[in-house]
């Protein structure tokens, strides 16, 4: 009995998938789910551990690292983040201020520049576009010393300006906006022009409202990029009162604040650093996924 079934696939494979025996299709399906669940565990378990550990005591976190159930359950780590013993609220505030400024700036300046590169005819436009492509390939890590130098020379090192201004524009964002403006028909703008609207007026009240999808993409990318930014802030500021979440978290982890092995505390801080981006991600998931693959193809 079993031998005849075992021999079935060699003939079944010759014909179409739909004609496969039921058990084989079921097997394929279960194997598919098995693989997905295996990888999902690898991807979700670390975050589950992180959440669980943030509600554990230090001793429990060390003694039962793999357990997903805190025993005893405690809010101590979360309380410590906000009870004033750590400058955590300052970091959170700085991250919010910097991220908001950078995002607003990028959305506005990137769309201005993207629009000009796509629609306005002016001397030097082709050169600017080529320069932009070149700038896009400058790797971030080699900018540490250069940025530090210019911030010092301008006398704004170790200020909010140093954290925000260099990030106000990004070449990739300009590129995304330009691509978008290239893709929408020009006729509506021309109609507005004929009605006598100036270039900026046309851009502001006619073109930008049509560009909402691209603006959302740039907003998401700016938010995520500046919230997660680490290296630029590392060289731009020194005073602890200017630290963002990422800087503070790195300091907290290295034990400089007497927090060496307090994993519930550091994991809670890391979790709070992750949550805003996570919320953004779940709201705009479809757009992020599409944006990422589009950027990849064109990038």
């Amino acid at each position: 009995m079993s031998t005849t079934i075992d021999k079935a696939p060699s003939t079944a494979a010759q014909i179409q998938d739909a004609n496969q025996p039921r058990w084989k299709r079921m097997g394929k399906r279960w194997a598919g789910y098995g693989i997905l669940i295996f990888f999902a565990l690898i991807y979700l378990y670390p975050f589950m551990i992180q959440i669980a550990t943030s509600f554990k005591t230090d001793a429990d976190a060390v003694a039962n690292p793999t357990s997903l159930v805190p025993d005893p359950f405690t809010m101590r780590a979360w309380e410590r983040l906000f009870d004033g013993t750590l400058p955590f609220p300052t970091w959170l505030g700085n991250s919010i201020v910097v991220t908001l400024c950078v995002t607003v700036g990028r959305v506005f300046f990137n769309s201005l520049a993207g629009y000009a590169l796509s629609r306005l005819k002016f001397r030097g436009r082709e050169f600017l576009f080529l320069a932009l492509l070149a700038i896009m390939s400058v790797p971030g890590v080699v900018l540490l010393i250069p940025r530090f130098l210019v911030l010092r020379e301008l006398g704004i090192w170790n200020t909010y300006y140093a954290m925000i201004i260099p990030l106000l524009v990004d070449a990739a964002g300009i590129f995304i906006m330009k691509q978008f403006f290239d893709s929408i028909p020009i006729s509506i703008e021309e109609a507005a022009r004929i009605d006598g609207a100036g270039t900026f007026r046309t851009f502001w009240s006619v073109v930008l409202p049509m560009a909402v999808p691209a603006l959302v993409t740039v907003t998401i990318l700016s938010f995520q990029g500046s919230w997660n930014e680490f290296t630029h802030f590392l060289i731009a500021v020194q005073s602890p009162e200017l630290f963002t979440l990422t800087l503070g978290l790195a300091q907290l982890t290295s034990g400089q604040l007497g927090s060496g092995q307090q994993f519930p505390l550091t994991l809670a801080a890391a979790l709070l650093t992750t949550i805003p981006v996570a919320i953004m991600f779940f709201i705009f998931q479809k757009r992020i996924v599409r944006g990422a693959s589009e950027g990849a193809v064109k990038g």
Partner: protein
Amino acid sequence: MKARNLTGWLFVAPAVIILVTFLVAPIFMALWVSVTNWNGLGSPFDAGGQTEFVGLENYQALLFEPGLNRDLFMTSLRNNFFYVLFVVPLQTVLALTLALAVNQRFLKGRGFFRTAFYFPSVTSAVAISVVFLFLFQNRGVVNTILGNIGIQGPAWFSDARGVFHIWFENLTPVNMISDPPTWATQTGFLGLTVYDWTAGPSVAMTTIIMLVTWTTAGTFMLMFIAALQDISGEVEEAAMVDGTTGWQKLRYVVIPMLKPTLFLVITLGLIGTWQVFDQVYVMSQGAPANTTLTPAFLSYRESFLNFAYGRGAAMAFLLFAIIIFFTLVQRWFLRDKDAIAEKKAAKAQRKRAQAAAAAAGATAGTPTGSV
């Protein structure tokens, strides 16, 4: 005409000013610093200051002069090379595997899994590094799980032994670690012994390798998914009718069609992996025994902690050269592909034009063949 120029430049002015001030100009400033001995005091651009022009001395010290500086830089290059050697293939294979797993049409809930796999890519590298620090503690999550299946995990963050050496020790009679052969420890080049050059990534480095593979695979998975969706169902059906097995279909149909995406993912991987910094900063700071030191981190350390800005800047430019090399390879390939596609299109058009002309010239009813 003049007014149009002015409007155009006004629109791009904020972007141009910021990019020139904080990106283009600083690169030239750093290029100058890389040929000085600036130590962070005063301004490196002050003609009357203490800063001296030293020519290519900083570059020489890193590349040609025997000494501690070259040893450290070569060590960082070696570490990063082994890191790239592991991360790029691993993340590419993992990304493709995830994409194929998520792309099976007969499964439900694929959106959920895709989200789960992509999520680490959007989170902060610092935050994720903190999680991995916890997972890989000596008696942490990973070692507990390994212990449950009878494997004794290493002391991940303090183990400086090279992975290749460990494999050699375990698989051959040569005691690569307890009694390394003298020919390997006594000969060498560029400041490191043959033994050091062939160590492979240290155990500590493998934690960063796993972390980065795990995080970035999600991004590349999306690229593969986009490419897989472009492979039409017809091709797959044709393959199925031909009686191919799943593996044959993957090997001979799907992967060849994914070639452009594979190339993109690999070159993006090469560009990205030479820049590893945040994870090193949070997880190891170059320790143990400098085996997780990377050029990006060393450049930071030399400049901002040891105040040797000239040498730090020189390292940054050498690293820049490595990354630009891979960027150019990628650009060249993509442009080449576009050019080929254009040529093909032009050829096809010529053919069509000829065919049309032939059809117009010929009497009706003469088939001109399929295009």
